[in-house]
């Protein structure tokens, strides 16, 4: 009888997982898409709230992509805004100067994609110093990269130099942001739960041991940097077509710091943490707007407290089971069950 009960319990436990994955995700995705389309076409959500949601989405993309380098791989990149700038400028140049005005609404995804690809190619270059330099030194290299991007943009007249670039239509809509956010989360989640993702984690834990266990650390680093900068570029393109104006100063170290705060607030090496971090930070900044200048005192203070009480962030090194592939979850559950049974038997 107790055996039957145990079997029933196992089934129940498994169903819990299967239900979460088989039902939650499709329902969430369809509902999210429908809601975003409805909100942007009909007068359901006022424009201000829509704008905040768009920024939340863009910040989630930025946070999860930087988390790949700073959280999962344990490096310290502070040049994320540089990749964002590349994506923003390439996408804007395409929609403003190259694509015919009338076709923009259809070609918008292509422009965003092109921005992402351009950023990914530059990411390939930035991966190279990461072979030789680590920790603080890589931070300085990425900082230098960010400054180079900024000063190059300031000196190219075609993109407006220091005055910046304008003339973009407001092409970033809630459904598009929803789409790109889900895509970036899905792709990075997939990467993390693959041999390359485990390679990324092992580099954080012990790079030499990782190489000695057969992990091609160079290949893994290149993949991580390329994927990370690709999505930073995507976020940049979406950002440019939200604000309809960009200038090089928007993508300096301050912007990188913002993304860093979201990563360390939400939690390193966690998809759920990245979402949480981006969400809390973006919303809080809006709520605290009445505080004016004091906002800039409150936020760092919060960060200091966080570093003291939860140095790895809210979800640091932990993951919500919604983001763990079903197979891994079931296997883990099965093993826990078995261990518990073995423990019961011996007791």
């Amino acid at each position: 009888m107790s055996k039957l009960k145990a079997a029933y319990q196992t089934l129940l436990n498994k169903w819990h997982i299967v239900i979460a994955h088989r039902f939650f995700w499709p329902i969430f995705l369809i509902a999210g898409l429908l809601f975003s389309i409805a909100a942007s076409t009909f007068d359901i959500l006022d424009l201000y709230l829509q704008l905040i949601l768009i920024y939340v989405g863009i910040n989630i993309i930025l946070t999860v992509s930087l988390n790949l380098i700073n959280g999962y791989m344990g490096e310290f990149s502070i040049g994320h805004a540089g990749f964002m700038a590349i994506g923003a400028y390439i996408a804007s140049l395409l929609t403003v100067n190259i694509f015919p005005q009338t076709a923009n609404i259809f070609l918008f995804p292509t422009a965003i994609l092109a921005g992402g690809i351009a950023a990914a190619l530059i990411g390939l270059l930035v991966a190279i110093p990461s072979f030789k330099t680590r920790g603080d030194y890589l931070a300085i290299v990425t900082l230098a990269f960010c400054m180079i991007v900024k000063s190059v943009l300031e000196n190219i007249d075609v993109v407006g130099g220091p005055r910046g670039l304008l003339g973009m239509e407001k092409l970033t809509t809630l459904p598009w942001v929803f789409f790109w956010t889900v895509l970036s989360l899905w792709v990075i989640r997939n990467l993390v739960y693959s041999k390359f993702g485990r390679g990324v984690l092992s580099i954080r834990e012990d790079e030499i041991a990782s190489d000695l266990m057969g992990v091609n650390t160079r290949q893994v680093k290149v993949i991580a940097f390329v994927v990370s900068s690709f999505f930073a570029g995507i976020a940049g393109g979406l950002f440019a077509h939200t604000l309809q104006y960009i200038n090089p100063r928007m993508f300096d170290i301050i912007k990188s710091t913002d993304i860093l705060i979201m990563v360390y607030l939400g939690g390193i090496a966690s998809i759920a943490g990245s979402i949480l971090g981006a969400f809390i930070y973006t919303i809080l900044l809006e709520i605290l707007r009445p505080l004016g200048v004091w906002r800039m005192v409150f936020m760092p203070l919060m960060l200091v407290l966080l570093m003291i009480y939860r140095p790895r962030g809210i979800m640091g090194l932990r993951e919500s089971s919604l983001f763990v592939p079903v197979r891994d979850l079931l296997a883990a559950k099965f093993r826990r069950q078995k261990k518990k049974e073995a423990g019961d038997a011996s007791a």
Partner: protein
Amino acid sequence: MPLLEIKKLTHRFEGLCAVSDFNFTLASNELVGIIGPNGAGKTTVFNLITGVYRATEGSIYFTGNELVGRTPHQITKLGIARTFQNIRLFKELTVLDNVRIARYGQAIYSPMEALLHMGRYNAEEKRITDHAMELLSIFKLDDEANERSKNLPYGLQRRLEIARALATDPQLLLLDEPAAGMNPNEIKQLMEFIGWIRKTFRVTIILIEHQMRLVMGICERLVVLDFGATIAEGLPAQIQNNVKVMEAYLGKEMVK
């Protein structure tokens, strides 16, 4: 053809000669011990074989392939695995992931398949996970598969490190002071364990050790290093009575 052949291997750190003119041959299925006092260059030899350091001079051949100039993961792929003097597990990762990481070279799918979780990804992941679980159950670690490796007791961490090394499918296993921090009783168990690994996985083993009890008990042949040079080589019984070895360990005065 010998499995491993080291010829005139020399390595200098800024003038300090850590290994000088080291020659060594190893046949398949041997179990050889490298001993010597602290700082004799034993671990440096391991680091040179596995590609952590690039040898200043000399050459290392493994199954006919020159190893000098290759990266560690290329050397691992050729069939050499190792453990570390001070345990170097991936501490924050689970026991299962520690072993799965070592199957990196055995899982065959492209980055694109990984990003989309399509194509060969599913089958290959299942294959390496099953293999890793099988290995863990052989090592009686399967109950701890979901545990973070830093939470394991010391003895299990040592065992996991050996399991992780074996997950790379090696022909040659390098054990760097496996008995560090063990009492005589545990050393006796370790001796049996190493013998069992050798039989079960059919690996050739080189062992670095401080504990005379261990090397004398299981090694078929010993090499004694001092100041980076070989001072003696032979059967354990021969080494035990070698004057040079006693001098290296105890100092000249004591031997007189």
